[in-house]
């Protein structure tokens, strides 16, 4: 029971941190002057949280310890992150799914659905211990090999930790909620694991935090494609490579609204023979579009290959002209080019179809 008490303490501390942390400032760093929109910030954060949610966990001692360690580690890493602190402060349940050799072994700890009408946030811990697994996350529905594990109807937030150990994991993620949401994905790969994540986003206003942790000759590949037309979007992707590993991340955006992308790749001194790359192409499709990108690299050893690139541009006039000579209207031609741009890198067929659907609805 001590572990449960500690979890409650962590949650209470997170609530205090959330209340004391300021909203991200316009001048986060004096010398750069990024004009973050105040109204967006206020819309995303609910104001003061007076009381943490009553966290409930009915599980074996070992499982509670696991959750405690996970939450403690996240708090250590994200102590200054207001949105993560908010999600922790509102945490109600934890779910643990353990997968061995591709089959689900345990579902513990929390009711599969929240109480009717109640907004709650739950952390889901997916431990993939071996084998080949497909995970699908469609807004707040989490599925394992086509079987629904969890549905958080009311939360509007995803808080998911996936640990792949000696396994091959494919994750497809779709986020197209009409309401504003926060998402936090921890994707960890150890012992020669191979993780590929395709993510399609069509946010109203959405902040997605993606954290990648790789070592033990593992490989993580993340491709996100976002159509940012309904409202602002903020993607924060960071990776920590503490042992030999490969990380490849690509963030593609088509923007007519407001987009912030922060990439942070860190390769530690021990992570020799690693590779890391981050690519962030942005297409601005309207005069109101604004794109901010900060793709940073922190490299602490020399036996590696690392790189990043970012670009912000509009649709190529030549490509537009070519399609228009084939009888497409300018708008349709722009949609076709945007579709090709967003689909690049996304392998999953149903995610590719959802991109088509979004663009048709534009």
């Amino acid at each position, binding site marked *: 029971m001590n572990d449960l008490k500690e979890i409650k303490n962590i949650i209470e501390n997170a609530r205090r941190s959330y209340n004391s942390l300021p909203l991200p400032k316009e001048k986060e*760093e*004096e*010398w*750069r*002057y*990024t004009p973050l929109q105040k109204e967006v910030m206020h819309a995303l954060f609910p104001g003061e949280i007076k009381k943490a949610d009553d966290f409930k966990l009915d599980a074996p001692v070992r499982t509670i310890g696991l959750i405690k360690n996970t939450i403690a580690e996240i708090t250590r890493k994200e102590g200054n992150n207001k949105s993560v602190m908010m999600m922790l402060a509102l945490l109600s349940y934890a779910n643990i799914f353990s997968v061995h050799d591709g089959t689900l072994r345990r579902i513990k700890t929390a009711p599969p659905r929240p109480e009717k009408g109640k907004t709650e946030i739950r952390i889901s811990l997916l431990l993939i211990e071996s084998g080949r697994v497909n995970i699908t996350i469609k807004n707040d529905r989490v599925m394992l090999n086509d079987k629904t594990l969890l549905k958080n109807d009311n939360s509007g937030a995803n808080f998911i930790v996936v640990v792949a150990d000696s396994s091959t994991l494919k994750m497809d993620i779709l986020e197209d909620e009409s309401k504003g949401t926060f998402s936090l994905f921890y994707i960890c790969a150890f012992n020669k694991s191979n993780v590929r994540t395709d993510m399609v986003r069509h946010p109203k206003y959405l902040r997605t935090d993606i954290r990648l942790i790789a070592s033990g000759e593992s490989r993580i590949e993340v491709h996100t494609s976002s159509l940012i037309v309904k409202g602002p979007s903020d993607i924060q992707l960071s990776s920590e490579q503490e042992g030999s590993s490969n990380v490849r991340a690509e963030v593609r955006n088509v923007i007519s609204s407001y987009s912030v992308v922060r990439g942070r790749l860190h390769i530690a*001194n021990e992570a*020799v023979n690693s590779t890391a790359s981050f690519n962030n192409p*942005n297409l*601005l*499709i*309207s*005069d109101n*579009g*604004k*794109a*901010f*990108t*900060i*793709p*940073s*690299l*922190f*490299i*602490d*050893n*020399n*036996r*590696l*290959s*690392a*790189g*990043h*690139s*970012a*670009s*912000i*541009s*509009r649709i190529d006039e030549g490509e537009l002209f070519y399609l228009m000579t084939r009888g497409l209207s300018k708008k349709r031609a722009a949609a076709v080019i945007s579709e090709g741009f967003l689909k690049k890198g996304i392998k999953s067929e149903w995610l590719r179809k959802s991109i088509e659907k979004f663009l048709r609805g534009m």
Partner: protein
Amino acid sequence: MVKEEKFRVDYSSYNFHNKRKYAFKEAPGISEKVVRDISKIKNEPEWMLDTRLKALRIFQSMPLPKWGADISALNFSELIYYARPTEKKVNSWDEVPDYIKETFERLGIPEAERKFLSGVSAQYESETVYHKAKEELDKLGIIFTDIDSALTEYPELFKKYFGRAIPMTDNKFSALNTAFWSGGSFIYVPKGVNVPFPLQAYFRLNIARIGQFERTIIIADKGSSLHYIEGCSAPIYNRASLHSGVVEVFVLDDAKVRYTTIQNWSKNVYNLVTQRAIVHKNARMEWVDGNIGSKTTMKYPSIVLLGEGASGEVLSISLAGRGQCQDAGAKAIHLAPNTSSRIISKSVSLDGGRSTYRGLVRVSERARNAVSAANCDALILDEDSSSDTIPYIESQREDSLVSHEASVGKISDEQLFYLKSRGLSEEKATDIIVSGFLSPFTKELPLEYAIELNRLIRLEMKGAVG
């Protein structure tokens, strides 16, 4: 794993310190008295003293920046804020005191001048001691003088441009510089005049714990062109020294300015410099920036593209060795239509050094059809060294084209093997590969600077093997 033995840099060729008397030297520490004394000695007008005092208050009220390199060890109360080695300025080489001459000769200044450099404005501590401009410059109407003389001789021009590109409120160190500035160059190139050869100033710090706050103002009037070169070299001392210069460049319509600088401060100097160019219609600014020395450098040459069709380029290299932190980069701010910028940055980290590229490209709502490209490459020569790349890219225009690319890696084994198979030692092969890596920068330098830079890099690389 057997670790290669790390090199030890032989600084003896730079570590010379001439003993001499100072005409005037302030006690260490920041105070209003120091500011008043400086202003009084220089016989400055009232407005300048007021500006200095105001800047001092701003400096004292601003916190140290929380981002970038660690400068928390910097102790402002230990630094000397003003020292002047001679009583008066001289304009002939023969009149320069022997001990100062000797120091400059070891750095090769007179030869450089004899060859093709037009004027030497050599700064020795806080005061310009030697300044000579060739008659040709006078004939063309070019003003190339030390900044103190400019304040008395061209007060209106001085007042018009002083603090216009970099106001005292810009950052803590621009406030510090505005309060204590002393020495530096002032250049005005009249309309349509092309300066036919590079102008050069050579800076040296030669007293422990000295703060050097040189201020340089360059104005290139409409349709003119100029290449200005500044180089730094300083001997080693135990206590931390501070160099906090401010360089303001105004490139008016259709003009072109290239500012070349190589800093090789000794490994105990904090080099916290603010450099900014305001570029008007169809004008062009080029920063060519080499950072070899210093303990900690924070330096981000900026281009503010204010006029339609303006363009700018920043070409920079940095070399971070033992105990060094080179936090360098560039900023390009597009404020007008059809502007373009290009940033090329190369860094080499070795022997536990840390190099950082920190850049900003900003396309404002007014910058129709702006184009910007940035390219950063980093070489890490051993596993104790590190390299960071932190570019900020902001675009508010659909019709702009902004791109950034960076790569980090080590010297490839294939390249090393190839050169070694041709009979070169590993050290020599590494030398050649690093020289090749930095060649986009060195080929932009005047010959004698390229030679000096290659010599400095070889010195830094001595014993370092990939």
